[in-house]
């Protein structure tokens, strides 16, 4: 069971809504498996069916994490028209087996859904998530 603080869930949804209909993306970092910070990132591809986290943002965040001694815990992105489940593209481009992949779906705009997965070598494992305080 993975615990996601409500403020992070809210921020992921806010970010997704702000970028809709395009996909948004960002990073979640912290220590000992606890998320301490969310980093909104730019997508280098503005598309409803694609995200490509701006490598410059990525570099900046990665450096910051190394300085703070934090680890990259999660990568989030939105699906603005489809369900919160990794697509073929998501799986093919999942190069971070140690990170959790958070997908927020705006398929039903008034009922956003966040689901969390581990994607390792083409295999998708869903994690149970509890959104709490």
């Amino acid at each position, binding site marked *: 069971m993975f615990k996601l603080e409500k403020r992070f869930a809210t921020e992921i949804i806010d970010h997704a809504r702000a970028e809709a*209909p395009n*996909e948004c*993306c960002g*990073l979640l970092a912290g220590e000992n498996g606890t998320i301490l910070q969310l980093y909104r990132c730019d997508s280098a*591809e503005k*598309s*409803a*069916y*694609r*995200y*490509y*986290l701006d*490598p*410059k943002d*990525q*570099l900046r965040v*990665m*450096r910051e994490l*190394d300085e703070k001694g934090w*680890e*990259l815990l999660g*990568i989030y*992105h939105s*699906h*603005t*028209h*489809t369900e919160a489940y*990794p*697509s*073929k*593209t*998501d*799986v*093919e*481009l*999942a*190069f*971070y*087996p*140690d*990170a959790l992949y958070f997908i927020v779906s705006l398929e039903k705009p008034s009922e956003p859904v966040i689901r969390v997965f581990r994607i390792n070598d083409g295999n998708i494992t869903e994690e149970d998530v509890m959104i709490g305080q």
Partner: protein
Amino acid sequence: MTVKIYIPTPFRAITRNQATVEVEGETIQHLIEALEAEYPGIRERVFDEAGEIHRHINIYVNEIAVENLKGKDTALVEGDEVSLIPAIAGGAIPFTEEQIKRYSRHIILPEVGGKGQRKLLNSSALLVGAGGLGCPAALYLAAAGVGRLGIVDFDLVDLSNLQRQILHHTHDLGRPKVLSAVDSIGDINPDVKVEPHQAQLSSENVKEIIAGYDVIVNGCDNFPTRYLLNDACYFLKKPMVDGSIFRFEGQVTVFSPGKGCYRCLYPAPPPPGLVPSCAEAGVLGVLCGIIGSLQALEAIKLILGGGDPLVNRLLFFDAMTLEFRQVKIRRDPECPVCGDHPTITDLIDYHEFCGVPQGQVVS
């Protein structure tokens, strides 16, 4: 020269958990080879079988991407910092199973394909008027999957509309046309977001309304709106698919900003009362379907970017003889709006320009 390399987390198992390592190399290529010698397994993560940098690996020298330098041949100097960054990317599949089925007849057309269909789904069009022309145009644009459709009309559904305005049904009598349009389009294609604008276009609201759309489809039936929309589309650089109907005859053309406008064709409106409206002169219902469908076709071509749009051509259709004729039209260098020395550079009072009292507008 010694260069510091930033190792991304997924590769740190290879570098014995070190976040940065230092190796020597004259170029990126040499550097990766040197890295491979010390930490076997790195090379295949960075280069593909052809020896090129994997598409999903970004390499930065200091803060500059090597794709903006000389790629793997980028020269390095003492003290440079190289970062290896596997992409964080992905994306939803373009279509749901239902969409693949719904748009299959489009997707199998090489000229449309999945790419074109995605363009349609990501595009928007504004229909000015939910009347004789706007109704059939809206139906086809919605069925084609144009993702967002705006509809401007201030009017209510009247029994005399139903002979040709096929978005509206008998049970819609008395309802705002834009709302019955929302219902009809939703029934045909729930993918389409319909944005009703129950308003009469005016110099005050036209720019704000048209600004949010890729293509404007003009199905209005009066001269003040026609000139207003023409000028606003030119000022905001919006392509406009123009259509008009009268009794048994119709006209269609596409105005592409900078390639001529309605004023190049008709610099001034006819005197008020000279040209009777459809309400006064009548119109064959099915003619609206033909002209409105042609407008939808041209809008789809503009969105897809294919074929030869009806730019600089005016198409006439005569329903009685069933003849299509075309004439060439050109941008008029003397045009007061889009000519070489424009005298009208912002919206004006179109009712005064057309000599029509305010509010006298039908759909």
